[in-house]
């Protein structure tokens, strides 16, 4: 592993994105616009907007980075650049951490914009400050990135990779407690929700936007998210093969 190569890779990924201003605009603006739409959909029920909209500010980066990473990595595989990198003096971790660096920065920018709009303009409440939400958003984005990296190994085409989004993300979104409290779900579903990383990501955010005093549970949630991120990065590294059939 070498910091030089990790940094170079992060810079390269950012340069690729810089050449694609439309993607940058979509990344930064779409979540904020969706949140605005939500505000007016729930105009008569501001409590629901706070309950769903506030945690969503920190969950959007997860969903977006999952998609962006799985497609970027798939492209790296199909265009042969991954194979070239694997013949160079570069460790797999250099590549993965380079991605983490670039997408982490991008996620931070995305989280800042959506939090500014949500908590600044749309009247959402952040009783414990916006910073903790931005921090959790970046953490969640890295989780999305590492899971996206992992599933990209199981997709041969972009069509497949895009399908992984509903297949992988939607069930987690439904079960995480955002729409229905988990203790009101069927026991089986509640049990399943415990092993889904999204549940922990949501739990941390729900606590960060609730008026009740912050407990150590937020740190536990964040630790679980971090552990799953590292775990799937390691699994992801194992799917990067120097030798292929």
């Amino acid at each position, binding site marked *: 592993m070498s910091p*030089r*190569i990790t940094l*170079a*890779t992060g*810079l*390269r990924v950012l*340069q*690729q994105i810089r*050449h*694609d201003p439309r993607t940058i605009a979509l990344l930064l603006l779409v979540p904020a616009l969706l949140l605005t739409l939500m505000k007016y959909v729930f105009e008569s029920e501001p409590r629901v907007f706070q309950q769903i909209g506030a945690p969503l500010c920190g969950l959007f980066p997860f969903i977006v980075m999952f998609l962006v990473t799985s497609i970027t990595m798939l492209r790296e595989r199909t*265009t*042969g*650049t991954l*194979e*070239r*990198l*694997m*013949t*160079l*003096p*570069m460790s797999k971790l250099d590549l993965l951490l380079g991605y983490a660096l670039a997408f982490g920065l991008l996620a931070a920018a995305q989280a800042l914009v959506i939090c500014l709009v949500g908590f600044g303009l749309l009247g959402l409440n952040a009783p414990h400050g916006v910073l903790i939400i931005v921090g959790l958003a970046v953490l969640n984005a890295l989780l999305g990135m590492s899971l996206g990296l992992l599933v990209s190994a199981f997709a041969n085409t972009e069509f497949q990779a895009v399908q992984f989004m509903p297949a992988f993300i939607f069930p987690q979104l439904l079960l995480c407690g955002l729409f229905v409290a988990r203790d009101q779900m069927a026991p089986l579903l509640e049990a399943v929700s415990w092993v889904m990383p999204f549940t922990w990501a949501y739990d941390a955010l729900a606590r960060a936007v609730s008026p009740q005093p912050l407990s150590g549970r937020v740190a536990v949630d964040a630790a679980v998210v971090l552990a799953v991120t590292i775990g799937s990065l390691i699994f992801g590294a194992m799917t990067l093969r*120097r*030798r*292929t*059939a």
Partner: protein
Amino acid sequence: MTATPAISIRDLRVSRGGNLVLPDISVEIEKGSVTGLLGPSGCGKTTLMRSIVGVQIVAGGTVEVLGRPAGSSDLRNRVGYVTQAPSVYGDLSVGENLDYFARVVGVSPERVAETIETVGLSGFTGRLVSSLSGGQRARVSLASALLNKPDLLVLDEPTVGLDPLLRAELWKTFHELAESGTTLLVSSHVMDEAGACDHLILIRDGRLLRHTTPEALRRETGENDLGRAFLKVIESDEEAA
């Protein structure tokens, strides 16, 4: 020859997708030469090259490169591989692509300008690779493999889609590299490039037909045209079988 060969392949067996692409091939390539790897498309040229670079899962046999097992981590700075399809980032400029690969292999930024000149792309540094022609893209891919002056260069059909003038220039570059001590293995399915090689490896259906030189091939077959000479070798090979 007393020096250790650049590449030494013994009883190599490779299957891809259930097909035995290379049933059993043994061949040695000496250092500091340009060897042409020739044969009809689908004959196993790419598979052989992938095995040499160490990205191919092999079923049996040994491949040694510069005295080390193919794919060893200490070979990664000494072996350059250019795939048939250009493996560079289409959404980066020529300069950004090479800057990135230069950082990865740890060479100075000056080398970037040098290699861009070597492949004849000066003036295109700021251009996005996706906006280049196929031949230009292939040269960006070639340039990224030249950056760290590897001891062995494995080039899979590097001149496909290039105009004759540029092809001649690249072959001149290949010979200059060989004179400075680099070993080159260059595949092609165009026989008119065979004459520019020091050595020829002819393969068909994954089997080694000949390891020879252009002159020896001409002498053996009595054909001056190397394309026809290759056909004659195939014919005599079929008669023998």
